[in-house]
């Protein structure tokens, strides 16, 4: 190796290192690809359909049967069984056979026709939040409609037409428009952040691992010499082949999401491609920053891992950042994925002018140049470091 030096020599050296260890292939290609396929196929329905639900019909009359029939016709609800009493339905819920049930007490029809205002109840198992919320929506609509059906009968009997009846039963109606994702598609909602999140996790770990492996294996001196003791050159040349592979993986998920699955990309592909590329570079920059700051493979790798895993909840795509404690809200600024998520919302989901996202792009660039602060420590470590398990 002594004869060769310079940027491309290090690139070549790193490429053969990557090629010779299956670990790199597993973590740079297999792991992200597995997750890409997993998430996009797992939720391919978009919005869960035919969720198993039950009914306790103690009334067993024309009214209660019509409620059950109508509920079953909703796309998201499937009445799998009728239970004879409340306890039985609750136990079925504890066994996870149903996510919720409708309880129609005895005398519902009699009370309704004698205008005594009966009460029907909706129970859902909120341990499973998504099916519970979706079932609630169907059941609630059904309950209101059942009520309206009775009300309509009374009104039409008094001579009102349909329009007037609805105008009376529900004078003000809500019309809720979901901007950018009108289908309430969970795949759009989750995969758009989950796929880059997995990639970020792998970039952080692989970058930190490969830099520190030079120190652990005692090859760091050779590496520095090849770069003429220029640590910036050494690191950028070493990470270049990884950048190429990870950028290709980013391209893969972008093609899957916006090409194959046709998820909304309202400003076209370029803003997202730019964001994904910057996300890769920002994560590499952040990992180098950590790797230089902490001169222990295990500790710096632990921190990178923690950052990668934590970036999933803290990016705020499932539980909004504004709902978190203030300390964590402040912390969220330190995660590259957070900025990527904000760019995605602006550029892909809402399709607003890029100038609104300028700051988020800039923040990602800032992560890229972050290592300039402490990379000299890495050079020092390369000359003096000894590995401790």
């Amino acid at each position: 190796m002594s004869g060769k030096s310079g940027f491309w020599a290090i690139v070549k050296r790193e490429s053969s290192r990557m090629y010779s260890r299956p670990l790199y292939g597993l973590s740079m290609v297999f792991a992200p690809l597995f997750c890409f396929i997993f998430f996009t196929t797992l939720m391919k329905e978009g919005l869960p359909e035919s969720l198993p639900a039950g009914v306790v019909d103690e009334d067993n009359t024309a009214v209660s049967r019509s409620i059950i029939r109508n509920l079953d016709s909703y796309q998201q609800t499937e009445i799998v069984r009728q239970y004879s009493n409340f306890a039985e339905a609750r136990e079925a819920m504890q066994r996870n056979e149903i996510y919720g049930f409708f309880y129609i007490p005895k005398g519902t029809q009699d009370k309704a026709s004698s205008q005594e205002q009966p009460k029907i109840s909706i129970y859902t198992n909120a341990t499973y939040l998504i099916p519970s919320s979706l079932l609630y929506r169907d059941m609630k609509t059904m309950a209101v409609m059942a009520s309206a059906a009775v009300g309509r009968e009374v009104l039409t009997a008094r001579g009102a037409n349909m329009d007037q009846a609805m105008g009376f039963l529900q004078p003000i109606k809500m019309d809720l428009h979901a901007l950018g994702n009108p289908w309430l598609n969970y795949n759009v909602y989750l995969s758009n952040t989950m796929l880059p999140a997995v990639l970020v996790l792998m970039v952080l770990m692989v970058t930190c691992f490969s830099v520190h492996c030079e120190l652990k294996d005692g090859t760091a001196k050779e590496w520095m010499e090849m770069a003429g003791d220029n640590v910036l050159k050494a690191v950028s040349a070493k990470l270049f082949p990884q950048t190429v592979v990870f950028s290709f993986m980013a391209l893969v998920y972008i093609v899957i999401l916006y090409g194959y699955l046709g998820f909304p990309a309202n400003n076209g592909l370029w803003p997202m491609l730019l964001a994904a590329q910057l996300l890769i570079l920002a994560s590499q920059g952040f990992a180098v920053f950590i790797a230089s700051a902490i001169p222990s493979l295990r500790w710096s790798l632990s921190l990178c891992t923690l950052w990668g895993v934590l970036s999933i909840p803290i990016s705020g795509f499932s539980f909004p950042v504004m709902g978190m404690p203030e300390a964590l809200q402040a912390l969220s600024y330190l995660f590259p994925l957070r900025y990527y998520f904000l760019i995605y919302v602006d550029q892909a989901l809402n399709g607003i002018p890029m100038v609104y996202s300028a700051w988020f792009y800039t923040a990602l660039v800032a992560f890229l140049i972050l290592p300039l602060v402490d990379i000299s420590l890495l050079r020092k470590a390369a000359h003096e470091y000894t590995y401790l398990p």
Partner: protein
Amino acid sequence: MWIKDLLDVCGKELRKTVSDVGVLVFFIVVPLLYPLLYAYLYGREVVHEVPVVAVDDCRSTTSREFLRKSDATPDLRIISYCSDMEEARNLLHRHKAYGVIYIPSDLDHTLEEGRQATINLYCDMSGLLYYKAMLSGCTMVSLEMNRNIQMVRLSGMSDREKEVMTMPIENEYVTMFNPTNGFQGFLIPAVLILVLQQTLVLGVAMMAGTEEERRRRGELVLGHEYDNPITVLGGKALAYLLVYGLTASYVLCVVPWLFHMPQLWKLPTLVTFVIPFLLASIFFAISISFFVRDRESCFLLFVFVSVPLIFMSGISWPTSNMPAFWRVFAQIFPSTQGVNGFARINTTGALLQDVRYELIALWIQTAVYFMISLFIYERLYRSDKMPGIEFVLAMRARARRNVRVAVRDIRSDIEEAAERIRGRRKK
């Protein structure tokens, strides 16, 4: 004899665990702190006071009442009244607000005519919780206002009559088992179980990686001085079970208690369920730890798995709607059963018979992973990768000889083997 070996291995494994900071971090520190971080993160359960903007083209008493009442709900907060949609959109784009309430100019007019009036809501879909907050906030207000409007229209009837007219059948909604219907109550049980399984996998894999490194360097490893791979495997598993008995009682009992989450379990149920879960996880961890070639590669190989695993458990996207392939695939991980069982025992107060399926599956997993790890151990014993190959050959020779003589001979064989290893290392 074997019980002494078992306890011996167990003791050595425990000492090894305590003396390895890397493993201790996985076995103790991560389970200690990580769940607290998550519980803290989701501590507020739901989002309150989602900032929205109002565009009121009607400017009547009714429209103002609607906006005032929306602002007063716990779900929404009106941060600005805009003159037109353009201005409102601008606030959405700058992430100052997450929704728009638009009241058309003909609201009063339509109501006076007795027809149905529409209020338009626009919601930013970057988070489904914004959508949920807007839907529930505005629906609550509209239901209340609708009622009042009807009451006025029905003037002349008695109050009771009016009530019956406006809502012939009442309905009520009960979210069972997770009373605040929030994130903490639904996600934390899954996170807790996953933390247990994944830290076990990482810690065990790190130890295996360290052993593999030492083996490559030609140093001895624990295990070669005992007669039977089963005792080695059993001793290790016992050591992990002892450590994780403590870890699990903290993670599964103390953490939910600290954060005032529902805890409806009965102790015998919980213990009967958690033991097979831990055993399955331990043998699962041992089985896959053989893929690890060095100390730190466990991070790269196993951490990312947590992300799909939490979804495979069906706590988020419902199991009933997963493609069949993933539903079957999920069955090979103890966490799938662990999450489903624990979530129901802890949060819904399910009894053993309610989690029968999960319990049986966990015992099957325990058996299968035990067999797999035993198989690999046996091979490792016989392979020449082990520096103790001379010992294995000696053992085989012993088996061929008379058993009675063997008991006496074995000691000298081991001595001899050890001598040879020492000699080789000197070289």
